């Protein structure tokens, strides 16, 4: 378990967070700029001293103000991948990677340097200096360096913020593979929904120095009441699917509990797990099964809940086997006579689900 209960006042900003999460997989620390994400991870790494509170990671107490415990950063065994990499400019890539190796206890060297170099595709860079690396290469080295110091927990503070879209996707693929292969728990700080959709298992939602919600990423991203924090226009549901096949028209079929979702073609083998985020504003409602319609994704279901959203909109939670959200106008809801419990059809445009909405694991050979 990762148990966090920390307080810190910085000028006008007051951080007070408490949450407990399993130390497995990737936990996204999500929130807007200024929510206190970096302050929190700095306290977890021991780079910033909390005013009060407790911090336990995997049974180890790293900070406890009552017991006067404040473990030094070098003894915490908490790895940290910084937004800007922070590679040592005077050392080669290889020396950077191995910098923390000597400090890991001999009996606790689980990571195989050759495996990590291979997983991160660093084999050809070992003799280079950081100044000659591209942004994506630098971050890959930074991730490898942190992992080889044998951390019990790996913190990543917006490691993709400085990269272009292609590099982002590439590094996310690497992070997914590390998660699957190495089993080091990761706390991933981000304010980009796209990254969280793709990577996060758990999620801690931060706003104004406090925790708004904690839970599985799928649950939290599917809650419209949290959309002010996750992004109002991005409100929607996250659905776990599997690639079922590809049709003759270039579409990929994603199977889920409620049926088959057709999206623009994905270069993925059948069986691959894919997360699809369906935004509420991309879902329309029909009371009878529509015919003569261009929309391919039609899911029968039932209205579970209705919440007014703003002055003229209405958010409907639909049960189509999984939870789905639809945002329609209050006028339509009235004219169609929509009430909770009513059987309806949810309509989703295939083209509304672009690659930013899909958390797909990249094939390992595509860099």
């Amino acid at each position: 378990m990762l148990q966090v209960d920390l307080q810190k006042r910085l000028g006008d900003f007051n951080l007070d967070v408490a949450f407990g999460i399993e130390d497995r997989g990737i936990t996204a620390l999500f929130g807007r700029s200024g929510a206190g994400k970096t302050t929190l991870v700095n306290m977890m790494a021991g780079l910033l001293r909390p005013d009060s509170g407790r911090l336990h990671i995997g049974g180890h107490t790293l900070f406890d103000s009552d017991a006067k415990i404040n473990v030094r950063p070098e003894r915490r065994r908490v790895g940290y991948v910084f937004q800007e990499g922070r590679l040592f400019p005077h050392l080669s890539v290889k020396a950077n990677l191995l910098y923390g190796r000597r400090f890991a206890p001999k009996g606790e060297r689980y990571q195989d340097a050759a495996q990590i170099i291979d997983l991160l595709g660093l084999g050809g860079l070992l003799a280079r200096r950081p100044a000659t690396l591209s942004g994506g290469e630098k971050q890959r080295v930074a991730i490898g360096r942190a992992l080889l110091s044998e951390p019990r927990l790996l913190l990543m503070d917006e490691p993709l913020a400085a990269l272009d879209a292609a590099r982002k996707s590439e590094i996310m693929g690497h992070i997914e593979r590390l998660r699957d292969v190495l089993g080091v728990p990761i706390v991933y700080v981000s304010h980009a929904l796209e990254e969280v959709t793709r990577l996060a298992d758990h999620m801690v939602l931060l706003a104004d120095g406090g925790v708004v919600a904690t839970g599985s990423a799928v649950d939290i991203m599917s809650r419209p009441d949290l959309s002010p924090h996750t992004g109002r226009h991005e409100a929607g549901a996250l659905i776990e699917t599997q690639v079922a096949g590809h049709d003759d028209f270039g579409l990929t079929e994603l199977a889920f509990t409620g049926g088959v979702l057709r999206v623009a073609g994905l270069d993925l083998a059948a069986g691959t797990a894919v997360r699809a985020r369906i935004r509420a504003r991309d879902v329309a409602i029909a009371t009878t099964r529509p015919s003569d319609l261009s929309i391919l994704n039609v899911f029968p279901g039932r209205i579970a809940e209705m919440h007014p959203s703003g002055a003229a909109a209405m958010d409907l939670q639909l049960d189509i086997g999984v939870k789905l959200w639809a945002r329609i106008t209050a006028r339509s809801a009235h004219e169609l006579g929509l009430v909770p419990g009513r059987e309806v059809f949810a309509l989703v445009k295939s083209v509304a689900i672009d690659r930013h909405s899909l958390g797909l694991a990249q094939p390992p050979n595509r860099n």
Partner: protein
Amino acid sequence: MFALSALESEAVLLSLRVAFWSVLISLPVAIAVAWLLARKRFPGHLFLNGLVHLPLVVPPVVVGYLLLLLLGRNGAMGAWLWDWFGITVAFTWRGAAVASAVMAFPLMVRAIRLSLESVDIRLEAAARTLGAPPIWVFATVSLPLMAPGILTGTMLAFARGFGEFGATITFVSNIPGETRTLPIALYSLTQVPGGEGGALRLMILSIVIAMLALFASELLARRVRARLEG
């Protein structure tokens, strides 16, 4: 051609030896003081800063006289050194090295402090998260990144020590073969009738040596910088 006389080579070698030892003994102290001034806030910070810079602003003869009072055989520290270690520095070449070190100290500290302040403390924080204790971080991250500043400081201090005159002659006097460094030898020649020729040779000699030192340090600095920037 320009063959050195016995007196000249004696003065040059003595000056080189004095400058070398003055740099060697002051370098670790200068790094420590630069680190304190750059990284720590403590009561007496301003005072320490002033103390370090004092040799830059008071007349060298004042520094020399102060050293004589402190380190002379009957001085507070001088007596202690003599009683416990049997070492005396007053009126020896070692005293000349001490005088040079003190006079060059502010230049050395300033150069090293500047370079330390330009070291990104975020890199040091990163090294700590990788498990490295502070001393190790300093030795493997801060120090290598400070190398250009340390080099500059060393070169400045060497040049200053090589040419140190006022504090040296006050503290250790003008003893041939022991404390008659190149500048003091030059001064002595200007004080005797018929010494102009010798004074001129020593003047040219000191300019040549200074230029060589400058070239050497510049070449070295380029190599260090190239190494740092990969």
